[in-house]
């Protein structure tokens, strides 16, 4: 189940979409989300669909892979659909028991379902085509102007980097400790919720102790390598805007304008 979640995962590649500046990709994704909420008719969805299809085909990510990412979120989409379907008043088409299905309901339900699907696919395209590290860089650079009002841009980015670095290490460690405790007869799988929660103590205590020890050692190692926060720090890889970034941004802006025109004209 956890393996199926593709949101937040990176699908390595070398396409134009992968190569776009992460800052541009983040801004585009934001604009895309905002645009989705401006849509109030079905027709503009066609443009959105076209845009999504274009991005997917350019990024060379298999459609199946993206659909697989939708699967774990299917319950949410279905619930949204059903809620809208039955809660909207209007001209009744048919009845299921005490529930009325109306034309307006059908309309609104499928409208909302589309919005949700586009939302998920759009955001997962960002993470699928952007490596965590460049995503972090992008966020840091975008937040930089807000430093003056106290947004700790560098610290946030550093925390994200370290978290990404240590997730595989800690997962591996959790598995080792679990096996060591199982060798001592621990049972992590049976019993009721309370027993199961209790059985996690022999896993979580060593894991926390180890995480703290790692944090301590890492802090020491970072200090030894002259780390002193974000000030005066340079970066090896510079983010430079390319022609392709401007083209991508323009396409997004055109889409945005079309959507606004449909809404207000």
């Amino acid at each position, binding site marked *: 189940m956890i393996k199926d979640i593709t949101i937040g995962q990176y699908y390595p590649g070398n396409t134009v979409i992968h190569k776009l500046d992460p800052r541009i990709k983040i801004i585009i994704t934001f604009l895309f989300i905002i645009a989705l909420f401006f849509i109030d008719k079905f027709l503009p969805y066609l443009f959105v669909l076209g845009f999504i299809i274009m991005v997917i085909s350019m990024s060379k990510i298999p459609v199946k892979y993206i659909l697989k990412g939708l699967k774990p979120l299917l319950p949410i989409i279905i619930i949204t659909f059903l809620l809208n379907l039955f809660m909207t008043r209007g001209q009744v088409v048919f009845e299921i028991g005490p529930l009325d299905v109306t034309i307006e309901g059908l309309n609104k339900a499928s409208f909302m379902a589309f919005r949700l699907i586009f939302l998920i696919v759009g955001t997962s395209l960002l993470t699928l085509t952007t490596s*965590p*590290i460049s995503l972090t860089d992008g966020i840091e650079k975008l937040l930089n102007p807000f430093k003056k009002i106290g947004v700790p841009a560098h610290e946030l980015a550093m925390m994200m*980097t*370290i978290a*990404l*670095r240590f997730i*595989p*290490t800690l997962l*591996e460690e959790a598995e080792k400790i679990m096996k060591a405790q199982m060798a001592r007869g621990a049972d992590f799988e049976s019993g009721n919720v309370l027993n199961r929660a209790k059985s996690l103590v022999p896993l979580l205590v060593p894991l926390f102790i180890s995480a703290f*020890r*790692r944090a301590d*050692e*890492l802090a*020491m*190692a*970072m*200090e*030894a*390598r*002259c*780390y*002193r926060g974000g000030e*005066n*720090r*340079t*970066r*090896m*890889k*510079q983010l430079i805007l390319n022609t392709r970034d401007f083209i991508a941004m323009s396409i997004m802006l055109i889409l945005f304008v079309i959507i606004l025109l449909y809404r207000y004209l």
Partner: protein
Amino acid sequence: MKEIMVKMDNVTYEYTNNEEERIAAVKNINLEIYKGEFVVILGHNGSGKSTLAKLMNALLLPFKGKVYVNGIDTTDMNKIWDIRQTAGMVFQNPDNQIVATIVEEDVAFGPENQGIEPKEIRKRVDEALAAVEMLEYKEYAPHLLSGGQKQRIAIAGVLAMKPECIILDEPTAMLDPSGRKEVMNTIKRLNEKERKTIIHITHYMDEAVLADRIIIMEAGQIIMEGAPKEIFSQVEKLKKMGLDVPQVTELAYKLRKEGIDIPNDILTVEELVSVL
């Protein structure tokens, strides 16, 4: 005239334990380490080796006495970054000193902190990775590498800061034999080819044999110091301290006790074969 890399002048470092007692981790240490030297520090866990190493890098500051790195007093807070750049440090656990999720980004971490120009960082990163023979892994995720490879990345991370001296705190303790060999070959090469001063802490006697000088610590003090041949000629004393000696050294010692006339400073297989 030998130039001094690190100088310790009557250094004591104390810490407070759980029972609120003050304990001296190292006391009254006087020590000089010369530029280009390869020094190995031996001693049991808790003998003060790690504390000594951290004092040389201003990660710890002496409670009494002075530590000078390349002539700079480590208590001079304005020079602290110069000191850490001059004396780089590699730690025991390779996992807990790699910061970034891509090898080359991690190697760049030190120079980035120093505020070096991006182009220069790129150059240094490639050079450092080449020096530890890991250039072809520059785009790998560190968690997919072996222990020995990770430790070489950690060494590259220090090298990219262009230090004169590298302090390694038990870098081989968690590695398998082939990882140990990789790391020791790297250290040896950096000492010989790039003239880096090496201060290497270890439990392995086969690594100590490679040194120019061995320092043995016990209970926070230096109790023996000398060239490997001088140190390992005192087999009985080392054994009493619970330290190892190479098997051939032990054999030579036992043969001497049986009245066989061979020198008392045998360190390698070849030496013992040649005298028998």
